């Protein structure tokens, strides 16, 4: 092995935070997690949830009961998010986190409840079809699995983000800005999206939201399958969207530590119901949350 | 089970109402219906001192032989039909014959011309029409005759032919081949057209290259139309061109001058001198039918022979004196009847040997009988002049 040009403990070596590190001593089965989470659960008064959203919700989900076919997955889920706020949903696998996003977008069967968006007056968008959500309610969705157009080039894919924009020039400008910021995409500009690696694709999908100009952004597991540095990059994009462009973000994340660090408010979902809710920091500090959902 | 009213005789037929022979099937059905109407108008059929009206029960065989066979079973065993009118086409008739034979139900058929129908020893099938090998063989005879007249040997004649790959047309072909062998003519093109082909330009290109003297086509209505149109488009001509089904394809109406000089075999022509008490002369039949069916421009022979089949049934049942299938069969076998369609007398195998095929040529937009010579109304135009 060649000698290291850089001394090992050099403080300037900054590491991507990625998935975090730590030990894996806490071993709980799915059932244990579910049982203990059940025990944690207490009725959370609506006022607490409202307070988390600074009392002026922009996106409201109220008493949502939804599922697939005849099976109900969400049993009365309520959530408030203010304009420019970000929320993160965590919880065990199969808790129904993706189902919440699906329901907001209209991909599930909704038995009861409402989804409203806007401030100060809220518009009921519960039964707006998926293809009209972005156009009419300005809600954008970054899906959990792949959603790039494989035969289009990276550039065309980005421009598709601006499909609803009236002026093409605006979409073009936004795309240029993305390329400027992310040279990895700029290099691939004229390549068909199908040859991108998993990480590059995810980057493309998320940066497409920069072109879309929505009010509310739904993101399902932004960091899945990404290398540590990309994870930081993705969260950086989300941070910009929230803080510089004032978007409202609802995110589902299994990389819960990262997610809660990022988000203003966090919801812990268990078996289709909210078990805990609080600010991101509060939840991070909660030892039960740590043990049950952050891996100890 | 006798499900119908007492004073009607019910005939049954599986006919092509849908599917690829539906045009010809319709012609046949119209022919049956026309005759039935006429007979009923004249009071019906007297059988054993009682007068009956005639009725026909139809099923749609969808132009497929397998269906025909099933339907005949059904007509006979479920609907109790004892007297059958044939389906359209040689294939369906071939499928029908074993069934009627099995049940010993007599069938008068007018639309299945295949020779093989009459070589199986069937006893219950009676055909009003001439068999299909006689369709185009007169053309070959005519060509030989004309060649000889012009001082050439018939064996110098080159023949090009394209026949649809179905039982009827292949039968026509074997009739032709018999005559061709007899004259030692040379076949330069011998194509079989697939049933769903709507383009024969490859075959016609061969015609251009090999320049046969005689061109023969048989492929029902579609074949006639396609051949005529593409010959004119590709500038193909020959001394004699003969095509089956000209009338039902309405070549004159559709192509006008391009159809000039084409020869068309026919089972029947309205200009022939046949007549009977029911319809009058062939020409009377022609007029009456056209009056009743304004959608027809010409009367295709399929119509005429269908009507004749009903007439044969009426006659036979009358002579049988009772509504019994065996008696009816025996009466049919003894038929000796003059009709507007020609003379009807069945050979032991069920063929009608007494009525000849005639050959017509399109001259000035009219179908003129040109052969056999004794029926000829006008001389043949030979060689065919390519229309401009």
């Amino acid at each position, binding site marked *: 092995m060649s000698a290291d040009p850089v001394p090992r403990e050099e403080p300037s070596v900054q590491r991507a935070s990625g998935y975090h590190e730590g030990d894996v001593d806490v071993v709980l089965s799915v059932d244990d997690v*579910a049982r203990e989470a059940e025990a944690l659960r207490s009725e959370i008064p609506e006022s607490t949830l409202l307070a988390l959203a600074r009392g002026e919700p922009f996106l409201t989900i109220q008493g949502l009961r939804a599922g697939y076919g005849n099976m109900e997955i969400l049993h009365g889920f309520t959530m408030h998010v203010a304009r420019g706020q970000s929320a993160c949903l965590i919880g065990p696998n199969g808790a129904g986190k993706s189902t919440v996003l699906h329901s907001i977008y209209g991909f599930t069967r909704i038995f009861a409840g409402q989804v409203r968006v806007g401030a100060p007056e809220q518009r009921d968008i519960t039964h707006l079809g998926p293809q009209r959500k972005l156009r009419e309610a300005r809600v954008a969705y970054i899906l959990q699995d792949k959603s790039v157009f494989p035969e289009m080039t990276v550039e065309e894919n980005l421009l598709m983000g601006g499909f609803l924009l009236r002026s093409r020039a605006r979409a073009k400008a936004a795309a240029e800005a993305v390329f400027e910021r992310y040279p990895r995409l700029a290099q691939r500009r004229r390549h068909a999206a199908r040859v991108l690696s998993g990480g590059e694709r995810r980057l493309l999908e998320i940066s497409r939201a920069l072109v879309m100009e929505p009010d509310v952004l739904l993101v399902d597991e932004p960091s899945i399958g990404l290398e540590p540095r990309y994870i930081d990059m993705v969260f950086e994009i989300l941070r910009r969207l929230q803080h510089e462009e004032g978007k409202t973000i609802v995110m589902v994340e299994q990389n819960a530590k990262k997610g809660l660090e990022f988000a203003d408010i966090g919801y812990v979902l268990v078996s289709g119901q909210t078990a805990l809710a609080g600010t991101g920091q509060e939840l991070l500090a909660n030892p039960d949350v740590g043990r049950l959902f952050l891996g100890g | 089970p006798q499900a119908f009213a007492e004073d009607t005789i019910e005939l049954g037929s599986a006919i092509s109402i*849908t599917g690829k022979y539906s045009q010809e099937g319709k012609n046949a059905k119209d022919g049956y219906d026309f005759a039935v109407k006429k007979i009923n108008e004249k009071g019906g059929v007297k059988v054993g001192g009682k007068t009956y009206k005639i009725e026909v029960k139809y099923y749609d065989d969808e132009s497929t*032989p397998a269906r025909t066979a099933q339907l005949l079973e059904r007509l006979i*065993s479920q609907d109790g039909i004892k007297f059958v009118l044939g389906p359209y086409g040689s294939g369906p008739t071939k499928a029908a014959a074993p069934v009627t034979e099995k049940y010993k139900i007599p069938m008068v058929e007018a639309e299945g011309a295949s020779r093989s129908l009459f070589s199986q020893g069937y006893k219950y099938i009676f055909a009003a029409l001439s068999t299909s090998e006689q369709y185009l063989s007169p053309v070959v005879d005519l060509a030989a005759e004309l060649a000889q007249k012009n001082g050439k040997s018939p064996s110098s004649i080159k023949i090009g032919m394209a026949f649809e790959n179905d039982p009827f047309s292949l039968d026509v072909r074997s009739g032709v081949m018999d005559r061709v062998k007899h004259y030692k003519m040379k076949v330069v093109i011998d194509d079989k057209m697939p049933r769903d082909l709507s383009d024969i330009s490859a075959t016609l290109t061969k015609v251009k290259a090999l320049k046969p003297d005689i061109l023969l086509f048989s492929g029902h209505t579609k074949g006639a139309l396609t051949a005529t149109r593409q010959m004119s488009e590709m500038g193909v001509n020959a001394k004699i061109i003969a095509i089956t089904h000209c009338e039902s394809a309405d070549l004159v109406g559709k192509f006008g001058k391009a159809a000039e000089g084409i020869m068309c075999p026919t089972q029947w022509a309205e200009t022939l001198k046949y007549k009977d008490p029911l319809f009058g002369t062939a020409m009377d039949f022609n007029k009456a039918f056209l009056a009743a069916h304004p959608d027809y421009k010409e009367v295709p022979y399929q119509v005429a022979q269908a009507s004749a089949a009903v007439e044969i049934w009426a006659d036979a049942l009358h002579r049988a004196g009772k509504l019994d299938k065996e008696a009816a069969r025996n009466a049919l076998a003894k038929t000796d009847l003059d009709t507007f369609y020609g003379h009807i007398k069945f050979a032991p195998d069920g063929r009608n040997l007494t009525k000849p095929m005639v050959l017509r040529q399109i001259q000035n937009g009219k179908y003129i009988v040109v052969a056999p010579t004794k029926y000829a109304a006008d001389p043949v135009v030979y060689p065919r002049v390519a229309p401009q």
Partner: protein
Amino acid sequence: MMATGKRSAVLHIAILVAGLVAPFVFPGHSVQFAVFWIMVLFALTWDAMGGQMGYNSLGNITFFGLGMYMCTIVQIAIVYNVGEYTAANGAIDVHFTSPQYFTGLGLGLVVAAIGSTIVAAILSWVLFGIRGPYFAIGTLGVAVAAAELTAAWNWVGGGQGIAMPVFPGGPGMRERFFYFACFVAAVLCYLFFRWLYSTRFCLAVNAIRDDEDKAEAMGLHTRRYKMVAWAAAAFFLGISGALFGNMTGFVEPLETAYPTLTFGIFMIAMTLLGGKGTLWGPIIGATVFYVMREVTWTYLLGWQYIALGILIIVNVVFFQQGILGWVKARRPEWFGVKIEEKSGAQPSAAAPARKAVNA
């Protein structure tokens, strides 16, 4: 499969009895009943591939036609020279004695069944690399090619067809004979597939349907399963073709032997109507379809195909899971399906008691 033990036994016996007495109660309908059993056989064999394995074939009718021609040739060949028989175009006065007829038929059936199976096995090597719609069109191509080549082959009569040997015996006999032959073929076919679906075969072909690449990655012998499924279908289709040819009495390539656009599509329509991927779905589908077809075709002369077309459209638009699937969605308890636990697990404190599971 369909209901609990006792109920299903009653059902089976009822169908068996109905099948046995039908030709005596309604002798006039024998041929229609016989064709009905062939339809059941069609649907069952198609479903083995299309429903259970996800390989949607448009060309299964190939084996029907192959069986028909193989049987015909054997039947004729044991008495006459086939080439002469067909070239004479029926001009030979055919006569088959009873022993000749039945030996020929028996031998023909065996050849048809085995021959079709062998052809299927060979074709499977060539065709089963293709997937999805390409497979469907490819198999359609095989059927069309078979029809066209038969039509161009003079030795077997080409487009002119072959007149089948005449059945010895009285009028009612022939129908009854072929009715029972078809009935037995359909019952055997049902029993065979019923047994086959109770073995590992069933799960394996289901796996191929769901994700063939994954199945390969798990080491499944996918080719074997595909070959067996197709060969089994071909075996029964060959028999049905042989019987149908004799029933019709006249064999011809395009409409009798390889009716791609009628029987070939009916197989699929019936299976989808009843519900594919189930044992009873195809049977129910065949029944409903055939009854509808016969009824429309008696009472709506000339319109029967419009009715059929509309039936098919209504079927796929409103009963996408087929009749059986539709019932199953409404009444899952009839099928022994219990939704055990709600989603999101409410576990009992103790380790879950294990119940015997039957696959």
